[in-house]
């Protein structure tokens, strides 16, 4: 049976470098369709998390600084802020407009990229384990994206409003957003990578040690018969055979 041991730091560094190169190249090639596939779930998540905004448009655009996910939103109804009332754009004669937030595609995917790098860089005992890691990491990466993207969008929208109308107050979700962008997102990426590795190892150990067919563990008792009689076997299940004298049966 192959036993996984902790890798040396230099080996881990080389593996991490290779994994990082592979993942970065892969994401660079697929980042646009990947982020575009997130548009519908993002719109749904935003509608669920905050009813103060109405989403006007979410799209992936290219500008002078590269490809970005651009989101345009407007207030869904008037809100009270800074001692006054802020009305949505286009409300009762107010000109049309909205708030715009944009994110680089790489920035959206970077925490998941780190998770992927960790699970690919850490040595695996078999290719099967590596495949299992990727499969197990998918819901964790989805959770990471959900914790990051819609909350950061809302935090930025509220920050824009607070900066303009109530700069003294802390906008909603600002703390969570800053925590994520200030290293917390990377910490989660690393943690989810390590968690995936641990879960995969547990799953592999479980499937390797499961009993093959038959009854559960137990003990056979070999009973010696009398002269000329073949020994009889009492009990059931697998396990060690123990020899008992026939006298114990009487």
């Amino acid at each position, binding site marked *: 049976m192959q036993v996984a041991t902790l890798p040396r730091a230099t080996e881990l560094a080389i593996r991490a470098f290779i994994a990082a190169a592979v993942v*970065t190249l892969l994401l660079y090639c697929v980042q646009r369709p990947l982020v575009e596939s997130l548009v519908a779930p993002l719109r749904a998540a935003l509608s669920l998390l905050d009813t103060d905004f109405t989403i006007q448009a979410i799209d992936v655009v290219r500008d002078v600084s590269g490809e970005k996910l651009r989101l345009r939103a407007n207030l869904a109804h008037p809100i009270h802020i800074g001692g006054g009332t802020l009305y949505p754009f286009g409300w009762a004669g107010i000109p049309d407009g909205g708030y715009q937030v944009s994110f680089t595609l*790489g920035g959206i995917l970077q925490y998941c990229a780190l998770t992927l790098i960790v699970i690919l860089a850490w040595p695996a005992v078999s290719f099967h384990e590596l495949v299992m890691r990727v499969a197990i990491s998918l819901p964790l990466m989805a959770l990471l994206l959900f914790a990051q993207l819609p909350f950061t969008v809302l935090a930025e929208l509220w920050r824009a409003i607070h900066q303009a109308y109530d700069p003294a107050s802390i906008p909603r979700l600002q703390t969570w957003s800053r925590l994520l962008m200030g290293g917390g997102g990377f910490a989660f*990426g690393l943690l989810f990578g390590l968690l995936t590795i641990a879960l995969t190892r547990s799953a592999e150990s479980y499937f390797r040690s499961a009993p093959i067919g038959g009854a559960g563990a137990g003990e056979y008792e070999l009973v010696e018969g009398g002269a000329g009689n073949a020994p009889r076997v009492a009990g059931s299940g697998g396990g060690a055979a123990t020899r008992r004298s026939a006298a114990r049966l009487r």
Partner: protein
Amino acid sequence: MFVAVFSALQLGWQSARGTWLEYLVIHDGTVRPAAALVSLLTPDARASAVGFSLRAPAGGLAILNGCEGIEVLFLLVAAFCVAAISWQQRLVGLLLGVVVVFLLNQARVLVLFYAYRADPDLFDLLHASIAPIAVILIASIYFYAWLAYASRNPAASD
């Protein structure tokens, strides 16, 4: 405890925005050394540290949130706080870690500075994806290497 230490450091740093501490870390601790390095490597670039910006005639950088490397440092501090090693090893590892993070961040700033001047598309790729991940990975590997070193050389007492 990791979460508590990291959150406390992060929230403390957020509240230090606009103060002398932020100026010290970003201008004196990040921008000025980077400007000095650029002047050493490419004197023709005529780079100078102006506030939170590394300015040069053909293009410079603004060191904004996250580009000062402080978040990686906070992660390292939190990790060392929970590491099962002796206090001496913890302290030495952390001090070395500060140096490692400083050097990593200076390397990041320099790479981004030259990339921006050479190819804006390359800058976008480096800035958004490669540089942040590279810094956190190298810092993580440093931490792992230190833990491995500490386990091979256990201290006599805590």
